[in-house]
């Protein structure tokens, strides 16, 4: 079943109408004039909707059920992908997909959060919320990539690290913290793409990169709008207000000037309208960033990454 956000619906209705008319015109009736008019109207409608999105609407797009997930990007960007499983300690975590593949023929490591599309898959993927073993698996794969001198691509799309009893028992905080420290020290290129939801520490734990990019309709924040609203106003339903306060969109974050390197444009109406084109857009940016990073020595990569995060603050002295 297809899913549409409220603000997408007028556009979806119009598209449906256009398609019906087009099917109809295969008979001896010519609707091309009418079709042209409707296409124009659809374009205008889309522009009207998408040029005035609120931060909450962008958050909804970032979480769109039809949005491409990590495995979709892997399929459309990489070849020869094979997944690896487990942290060699506790279990495998399906909320984080890790493996190796080829990017333009060149071997690399790929890591990303994975959400499920139907109810069963959602539960299996724990809604894209990793447990400590997921982060430990990711670290294992990143350090293997370093061992073999392979660049690392990560794809960020999580509401956050899972808040559960088991997660706390097994050291969710320690797992995230260790990844932050160890990623800072990796002697291979690390390129991060926030594809959907960049949810706090659970996102950052695979997102310490030489280059960090956000897709046009992705979001990235220290806390979810709902979580923020629950703390500030004791009402999780005030997420839309909190989204405004958190300034969590790609453009907001780009304006800070020190956190992301690029915004990756999405197909009109968002990545879910054309996952293949979205992946092509991502690939282009990955190529560009990798080419730049391949000029750096292992030591320079570590130093460039250090200086990148070192510069992230707004203070007054």
């Amino acid at each position: 079943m297809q899913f549409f956000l409220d603000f997408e619906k007028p556009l979806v209705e119009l598209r449906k109408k256009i398609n019906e008319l087009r099917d109809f015109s295969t008979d001896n009736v010519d609707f091309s004039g009418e079709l042209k008019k409707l296409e124009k109207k659809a374009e205008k409608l889309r522009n009207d909707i998408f040029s005035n999105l609120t931060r909450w609407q962008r958050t909804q797009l970032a979480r769109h059920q039809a949005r491409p997930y990590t495995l979709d990007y892997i399929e459309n960007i990489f070849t020869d992908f094979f997944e690896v499983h487990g942290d060699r300690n506790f279990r495998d975590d399906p909320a984080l997909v890790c493996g190796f593949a080829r990017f333009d023929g060149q071997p690399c490591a790929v890591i990303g959060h994975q959400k499920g599309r139907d109810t069963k898959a959602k539960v299996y993927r724990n809604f894209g919320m990793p447990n400590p073993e997921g982060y430990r698996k990711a670290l294992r794969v990143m350090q293997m990539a370093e061992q073999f001198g392979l660049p690392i691509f990560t794809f960020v799309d999580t509401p956050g690290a899972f808040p559960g009893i088991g997660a706390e028992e097994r050291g969710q905080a320690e797992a995230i913290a260790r990844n932050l420290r160890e990623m800072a020290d990796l002697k291979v290129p690390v390129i991060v793409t926030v594809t959907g939801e960049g949810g706090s520490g659970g996102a950052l734990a695979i997102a310490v990169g030489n280059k960090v990019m956000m897709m046009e309709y992705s979001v990235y924040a220290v806390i979810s709008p709902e979580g923020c609203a629950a703390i500030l106003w004791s009402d999780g339903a005030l997420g839309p207000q909190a989204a405004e306060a958190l300034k969590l969109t790609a453009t907001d974050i780009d304006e800070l000037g020190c956190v992301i390197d690029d915004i990756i444009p999405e197909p009109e109406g968002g990545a879910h309208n054309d996952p293949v084109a979205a992946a092509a857009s991502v690939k282009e940016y990955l190529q560009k960033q990798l080419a730049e990073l391949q000029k750096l020595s292992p030591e320079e990569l570590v130093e460039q990454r250090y200086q990148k995060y070192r510069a992230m603050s707004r203070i007054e002295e």
Partner: protein
Amino acid sequence: MPWFKKSKAPIASSEKKKGQMPEGLWTKCKNCEEIIYSKEIERNLNVCPKCDYHFRVSAQERIDLVLDAGTFVEMDAEMMPVDFLNFKDSKTYKERIKAAVKKHGGGDAVKCGEGDIDGMKVVVAVFDFAFMGGSMGSVVGEKITRVIERGLELKAPVLVFSSSGGARMQESILSLMQMAKTSAALAKLKNAGLPFISVLTDPTTGGVTASFAMLGDLNIAEPRALIGFAGPRVIEQTIRQKLPEGFQRSEYLLEHGMVDMIVRRQEMKAKLSQVLKIFTKS
């Protein structure tokens, strides 16, 4: 004036001598609920003499407890946060900063500097939970990073005493990035072979736990401190289960292998001294 003060740490003697009235002659212990003469708790290093409950203490008090008298030299004392997002909930972040500074002074939620422990040079950062819940924004992240870099410069051990609700929402993405920045600095410290001791005190949660606070070569906790990634309420709401007794307390973390030891406040300095003698070449 109430005849006893409920569940708050008595004000430190060093901060109290401003001619103001003592806030409560008697204090009710949050844990055993005994009503105790405040001075007696103070004399006992802000630990309940009846049940050993460790009250929260200010950064200055903690420094007085662990560093040799008169050796502390503060760094970045006047660094100030900036409301760069014009963040507003019921109050603006600007107003919150102003109120916190007025009450607790500049330098945000962490006090940093160098000093000695039994004559050994150390660099320390000590959280002040009273300043906006010890939350970490740009200033806290920057000061912690500078402390680690100072440790590298002096080839001295680095100690952080955490007490924080986590990242500071009002700085959104930049507060998140402080987790990466501080952890990256710790990678440098580790590569340089210098010790990092993390002391976790009540409470240490969220982005602070999920970055430097869990990265100690040794993680040392005060007794019964709340330490975790997600707050207990968030977990309860997510899983809709009651949390086990003692969940996310120091003793629970020790049992699950997340902290190396639990050290009472009275023994903290001696323990740190013992540890540092083993970890540093004299």
